[in-house]
């Protein structure tokens, strides 16, 4: 099946990214598999690596993933050697995505101390702008409305806790 799959591979390497991308991702897979593999040996057990014990399957699966990660890297290398030029469509908004991840992380941390409604409304506006919105008023209105609707229906109707934060409602 392997060769069947490879011959029908639609594009060599990553069809859209930069050539470095797939290499970095492949290396990441290999690295993570390696680190996790070392953790398998840290599992406390009296059964060693017997199929009955807690180490056996993680060992098998992670070894396999490590090998497949290396195969993937080799495929990418082969693709570069054969084709040379990988179609490199630049992802113009990568920076925006990084900013969005940053905003998400900040949101997670301020949710508790600041309170659900203000944190969510601010997050909504910031996220929408990062994704290209240029209608600030609309975003603010929708953000506050959404946050209030969610907060009230969860806390009042369902008795589910959401942090109240700095503005008592």
């Amino acid at each position: 099946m392997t060769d069947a799959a490879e011959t029908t591979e639609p594009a060599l390497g990553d069809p859209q990214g930069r050539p470095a991308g797939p290499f970095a991702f492949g290396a990441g897979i290999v690295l993570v598999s390696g680190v996790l593999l070392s953790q398998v040996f840290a599992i406390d057990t009296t059964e060693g690596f017997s199929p009955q014990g807690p180490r056996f399957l993680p060992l098998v699966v992670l070894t396999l993933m490590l090998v497949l990660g290396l195969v993937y890297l080799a495929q990418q290398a082969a693709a570069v050697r054969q084709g040379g030029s990988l179609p490199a469509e630049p992802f113009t908004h990568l920076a925006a995505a990084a900013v969005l991840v940053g905003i998400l992380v900040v949101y997670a941390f301020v949710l508790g101390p600041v309170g659900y409604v203000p944190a969510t409304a601010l997050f909504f506006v910031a996220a929408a702008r990062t994704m290209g919105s240029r209608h600030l008023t609309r975003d603010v209105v929708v953000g506050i409305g959404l946050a209030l609707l969610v907060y009230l229906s969860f806390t009042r109707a369902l008795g589910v806790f959401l942090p109240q934060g700095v503005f008592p409602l």
Partner: protein
Amino acid sequence: MRAPRRSVVRRTVAVAAVLGTTLTLAACNQAAGGGAASSEEFPSKTVDIMVPAAAGGGWDSTARAMQKVIEDEDVVSEPVEVFNVEGGGGATGLSQLQKDEGDPHALMVTGLVMIGALEQASSPVSFEDTTPIATLTSEAEAFVVPSDSQYESIEDVVAAYEKDPASVTFGGGSAGGSDQLVVAELMKAAGADPSQMKYVGYSGGGEAIAGILSGDVAVGVSGVSEFESQIEAGDMRLLAISTAETQEVAGEEATTLQDAGYDIDFSNWRALVAAPGLSDDAKEQVTEVVDELHGTQGWKDALEANGWADFYKTGDEAQEYIDSEVDRVAALYEDLGL
């Protein structure tokens, strides 16, 4: 607490306008919390009951039943909120409780299962870092076999285990939980070596029952209520229950392990604790509220509806009980080699 199969219940909760309209009534009696009154009186602000697990499990239903009864019967004037902090079998919630030191409004539901989890997690926080208020409910553990089993009594099971530990497969809730602990306790009391135990863990009550009925497991161990309908239907035979006091199971008085001659009194209890460092006065006041809750008809109904046995201890009695349970679980973990 037994999480239904596959992780803890889906993390969920509904929203929406429709809900808003269908349950508007609920909104009416929910006064706004907050306010910075002095901490002399309890409660002076919203009472928070933390569930150190995801919504939908046993601790969660205990907390929500308390919340409902307190609000329905106007036990306190301030609102009561239930919130969930999942992780580490309760260790995450317990650590979070530490930051409310001295605040009687920060309460947490807990139970026997958490002792084991803290033990397993080698958690830096322990039950010492709480102010125990009261134990609330308990459930006896039941030992059952399929109705066509060769074992007629719990003595038969112990005898078979003593002869060859590998010949008896026990099964119940997750490994290291209360179900496995009670088997360890039984073997210890019988003078056998618990570390030889063959135990198959299942993640939900349904799967465990299926495992027993299919014949994978020779002796099933879990909360009595899990097996009641199978016992009633004649698919399973109840060998013994783990509490000192007997109770009716499927219309018949159950044999206790003590009746069978093993000195064991084991139950899966749940309790309410407060943040650490409460003043005696504050502790007293919280206890009064819980006392009142415990006395209401609403709480009795909730116990009945959920099939929980009343297991009410407060003050020093609760403290001593929890301390002794911590010691017991630690010893059992040692014996099991976990």
